């Protein structure tokens, strides 16, 4: 018998020896498997996300933001800030695709599945039959398969390739063709196993939809602050429509923001949040409104309390670091910034309800840092509090509480709902 056949026979004999081998399995393994199946079953229920739910939540978030803009920008009374807004908690809805808390074991399992996916992605062929074959026919098949593969360079010189007979060649090619077909089937059957893992893993990256509200506080909120109206009115010419602030005292309203966003968890510790928010800044001051007609005549000259409303649309970006995570409470730190654009700068003369609009140029840049805590009230509901310190950079924006007191303490309080 040739040397090659000796080698194949050894393989087959070893295969036969090992084929019937059994090992006693420790009893705790089934307990762990059973627990793992329970965990997987509960995880699957939570990870079932329906696109219509996500879409519904997103639509609700956008509708809430739009409704807030419409409500808050309508003609209003002389009140500085609606009393109901001050210190109110605004419902926050966060609907992550997946459970936000992952135990270490679950993290390890997911990491294992990720690696499984990566390696299985390399699998182009999966043998259809793993039933061990023995006997002379198997030796011939192995020999034919070995010969069908391309010759190796000198590293395998000790294994010499024999010339195959035409009949053996035909058998080898037939078997190779049959194997390719079965491999295709096996691959298609097996790939869903690992592609499901990939899809699950993609979903399990945890994307959250957040609808939130935030209010800010500043020590100089209702103090008079020296300042000059940063508006074209500053350079108001004698024959130009505009507003001049008469004195330095302003009464500032509590800044209020509402918004929607997405929070993506990249690792169990780190996540990134991006959103879109709307902010209302208000203040009341005493000033003079001057209206000049096209012909140059002064039509109106009123000195009165004037209420300024500035409406900002912004994009906040925050990085979150999960410090402590447990079944009942999460503590995290976060930092980031925002870019905001003033889309509407309105001045209303209180005595006669004259409304004057000023264009605002540039954008407002800010940075923030803070710590947050979320308390789980149930499987799908959490209450969170995110205090933060915010700094608003000098960006030549209209005068507001931000320009007067750029360092502000912010509070975000609300509920997170998980699907």
């Amino acid at each position, binding site marked *: 018998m040739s040397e090659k056949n000796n080698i194949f026979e050894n393989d087959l*004999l070893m295969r036969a020896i090992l084929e019937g081998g059994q090992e006693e399995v420790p009893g705790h393994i089934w307990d762990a498997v059973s627990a793992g199946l329970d965990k997987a079953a509960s995880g699957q229920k939570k990870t079932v996300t329906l696109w219509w739910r996500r879409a519904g939540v997103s639509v609700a978030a956008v509708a809430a933001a739009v409704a807030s803009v419409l409500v808050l920008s309508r003609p209003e009374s002389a009140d500085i800030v609606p009393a109901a807004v001050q210190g109110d908690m605004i419902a926050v809805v966060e609907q992550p695709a997946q459970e936000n808390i992952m135990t270490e074991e679950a993290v390890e399992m997911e990491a294992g599945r990720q690696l499984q996916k990566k390696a299985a992605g390399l699998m182009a062929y999966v043998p259809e*039959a793993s039933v061990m074959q023995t006997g002379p026919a198997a030796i011939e098949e192995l020999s034919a398969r070995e010969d069908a593969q391309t010759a190796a360079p000198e590293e395998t010189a000790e294994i010499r390739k024999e010339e195959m007979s035409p009949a053996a060649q035909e058998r080898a090619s037939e078997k190779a063709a049959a194997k390719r077909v079965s491999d295709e089937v096996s691959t298609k059957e097996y790939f869903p196993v690992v592609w499901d893992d990939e899809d699950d893993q993609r979903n399990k990256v945890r994307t959250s939809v957040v609808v939130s509200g935030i209010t800010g506080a500043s020590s100089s909120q209702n103090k008079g602050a020296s300042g000059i109206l940063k508006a074209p009115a500053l350079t108001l010419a004698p024959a130009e429509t505009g507003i001049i602030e008469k004195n330095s005292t302003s009464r500032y309203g509590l800044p209020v923001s509402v918004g929607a966003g997405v929070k993506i968890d990249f690792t169990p510790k780190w996540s990134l949040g991006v959103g879109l928010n709307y902010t209302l800044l208000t203040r009341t001051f005493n000033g003079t409104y001057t209206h000049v007609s096209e012909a140059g005549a002064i039509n109106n000259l009123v000195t009165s309390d004037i209420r300024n409303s500035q409406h900002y649309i912004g994009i906040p970006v925050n990085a979150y670091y999960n410090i402590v995570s447990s079944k009942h409470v999460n503590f995290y730190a976060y930092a980031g910034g925002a870019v905001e654009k003033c889309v509407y700068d309105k001045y209303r003369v209180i005595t006669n309800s004259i409304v004057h609009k000023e264009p605002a140029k540039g954008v407002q840049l800010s940075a923030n840092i803070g710590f947050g805590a979320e308390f789980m009230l149930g499987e799908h509901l959490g209450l969170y509090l995110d205090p933060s310190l915010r700094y608003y950079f000098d960006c030549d924006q209209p005068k507001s509480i931000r320009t007067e007191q750029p360092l502000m303490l912010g509070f975000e309080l609300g509920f997170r709902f998980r699907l």
Partner: protein
Amino acid sequence: MAETFDPKLIESCIKGDRAAQKALYDRLAPRMFPLCIRYVGDRSLAEDILQEGFITLFTRLESYKGEGSFEGWARRIFVTTALMSLRKKDALKMSEDLEAARGLKTETSSQVQNIGYKELMELIMTLPPGFRTVFNMYAIEGYSHKEIADMLGITETTSRTQLSRARIWLQEKIKKREDV
């Protein structure tokens, strides 16, 4: 010889019948555990592989469409789970430990006939991880060199080289055992 499994048992397992899953586990585990041991070379690590493999098997049982043997389908899962564990531990490096074994002639098949299951398992477990993996996949599981190369991210040449070295190493160990 591979066992045959009642489709009704598999169906019950898919439905989440824990008793059926236990029954399937009791039949498969003693056969899959040696596979795990052969691949990772360590019993305690093999227990982890076995546990993880069964969780994967039961959660993915729906994807088994009845084509090919069920045991063969199950073996693929455990092989992949074992490979992932080895990869995670960076244990699939193709080492040069068998340089000294080059040039040895292949022994006759009678050498292998004189070895029992436990001895052979011990010998395979002592192979370096890279060689052991290729040997298990080619000689025992029946993967081709192309399949092995694709799955392990190596070339077919490397797969052949590792296999031949593993064989030589095993033959030498078996011969030494005979000489003792």
